[in-house]
């Protein structure tokens, strides 16, 4: 069995989890295996939707002890279910929770682990993973030596595929509690926008923005085309008050949106490493020799302070982002 750990948000399967399920179904078909989905929490309401992405069985660990996320508590649920159901592959989305729990569950199972993978295959009955290393400057094919194989899938990479599965619901026991650590409080940002790692469109600013206040121009464009705003390390480190959570690059977030618009970003290796997986790249820069242009599908040599407001205006008049 291939088992996929799925996260729920307000009673709906999170998109990165649905992507992992879709990929799990594809792998299970290729290897002639069953696909299981595993949910954990105080309530698993919404888990039935896993059948839409091909789950044959939907396991639910429901209990008060799982009401708040616990690294060791959730790792125990995943490892126990893998063992009880004889799963050989455990997948999770490479989200904040997925990346926290999957390696711990892997160690508990004595299993190898590949994180943030962009490609998966079943070769000779075992998982094989392709993952970016050196923040995308190279790709490593990873093979597993262990009987159980664990991987997390990078969001926005694996296509969603709806394929009806039997979706038989089955309860699994929740641990009694007494976990070593537990989440006590969520400190959410006010914006409520999607995270850079899951965003479909990113408008990013670099040193050429000249000041943090000018990022308002990028916000306006992002709002007009349905995107979120990122920044280069140069901009985050410039003391303009931009949080590190906005940083795209090797020492920030590695992103793979459909569209990445780089404004006033020269294209240091550090930055390129974090965004070169984008499907389409647009560069807006005054310097025609900026390295970012080598990467860009569309390049605009010009003053971003003129071009960006024009883009916002045109996008609004064309009705982009409103559909």
């Amino acid at each position, binding site marked *: 069995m291939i088992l996929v750990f799925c996260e729920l948000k307000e009673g709906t399967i999170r998109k990165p989890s649905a992507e992992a399920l879709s990929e799990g179904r594809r792998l299970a078909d290729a290897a002639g295996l069953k696909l299981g989905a595993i949910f954990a929490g105080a309530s698993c309401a919404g888990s039935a939707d896993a059948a839409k992405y091909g789950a044959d069985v939907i396991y639910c660990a429901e209990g008060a002890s799982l009401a708040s996320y616990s690294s060791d508590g959730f790792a125990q649920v995943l490892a126990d279910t893998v063992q009880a159901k004889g799963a050989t592959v455990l997948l999770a989305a490479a989200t904040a929770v997925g990346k926290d729990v999957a*390696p711990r569950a*892997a160690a*508990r199972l004595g299993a190898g682990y590949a994180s943030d993978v962009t490609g998966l295959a079943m070769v000779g009955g075992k998982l094989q993973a392709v993952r970016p290393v050196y923040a995308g400057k*190279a790709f490593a094919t990873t093979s597993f*030596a262990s009987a159980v194989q664990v991987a997390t899938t990078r969001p926005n990479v694996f296509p969603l595929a709806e394929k009806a599965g039997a979706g038989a619901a089955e309860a699994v026991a929740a641990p009694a509690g007494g976990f070593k650590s537990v989440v006590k409080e*969520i*400190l959410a940002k006010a914006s409520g926008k999607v995270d850079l790692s899951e965003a479909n469109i990113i408008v990013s600013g670099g040193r050429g923005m000249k000041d943090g206040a000018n990022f308002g121009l990028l916000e306006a464009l992002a709002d007009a085309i349905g995107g979120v705003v990122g920044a280069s390390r140069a901009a985050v480190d410039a003391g303009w008050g931009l*949080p590190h959570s906005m940083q795209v690059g090797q020492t920030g977030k590695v992103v793979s949106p459909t569209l990445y618009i780089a404004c006033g970003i020269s294209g240091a290796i550090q930055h390129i490493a974090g965004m070169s997986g984008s499907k389409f790249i647009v560069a807006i820069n005054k310097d025609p020799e900026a390295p970012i242009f080598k990467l860009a599908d569309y390049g605009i040599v010009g*003053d971003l302070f003129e071009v960006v407001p024009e*883009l916002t205006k045109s996008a609004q008049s064309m009705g982009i982002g409103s559909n």
Partner: protein
Amino acid sequence: MKILVAIKQVPDTESRIKVAADGCSLDPADVKWIISPYDEYALEEAIRIKEGKGAEVVALTVGGEAARDVLKNALALGADSAVLLKGDGQGDAYAVAQMIAAYAKDKGFDLFLCGNKGLGGDNAAMGPMLAELLNVAQANVVVKLELGDGTFRAEREVEGGSEVVEGALPAVITAQKGLNEPRYASLKGIMAAKKKTIEEADAAPATAGSCVTTLVLPPERAAGRRLEGEAPAQAAALLQALKDEAKVF
């Protein structure tokens, strides 16, 4: 309080990556090695705890002779002692976690600090694996850490904000940028470090869970197109191209 800081030597972020002749590892020629930037935050946090409430700080790395450099630097910054576990520190995270766990077990550490990922390998796995092998608490990608009496409170980065994790010590905490502002080594620290010795031990035997079979460079992106004219014309042409050619909208 006794703190173990696990640090890793990695290629500098400005390094161009070349694949070695074996087709599955990094060509080390021309690579400048540095301490993984996230490990700097881990080390700084340990030193601040030592300065604040008092602690013994042990810096540890797994590697060969070349890895001594990051330990020397850790001693100069304020670590009390340093340990070089001789073994493959660039390989599988599960194997490295086993080596560190075998060393640290029964030595009475209250806190284990390391970067949330080793730059380059980007596994983000060693910390949580170490926590599981030692059967202790964990908090990953931490931007704020407070220690109580046998407890910790950590703020960690999650999508769209942060969350507060509370737990019992001992614990593995993996550091994220923002946790602190790492200091530079002082001349006094560098001189004092010269008098300290680096403990050396063979890493315990470990079982790798995975291995890299091939390493390839990404395909070059096809040449793009420049959009000419004044700003309004450029903006209109771009949106049209994104709509018609790229079908983004």
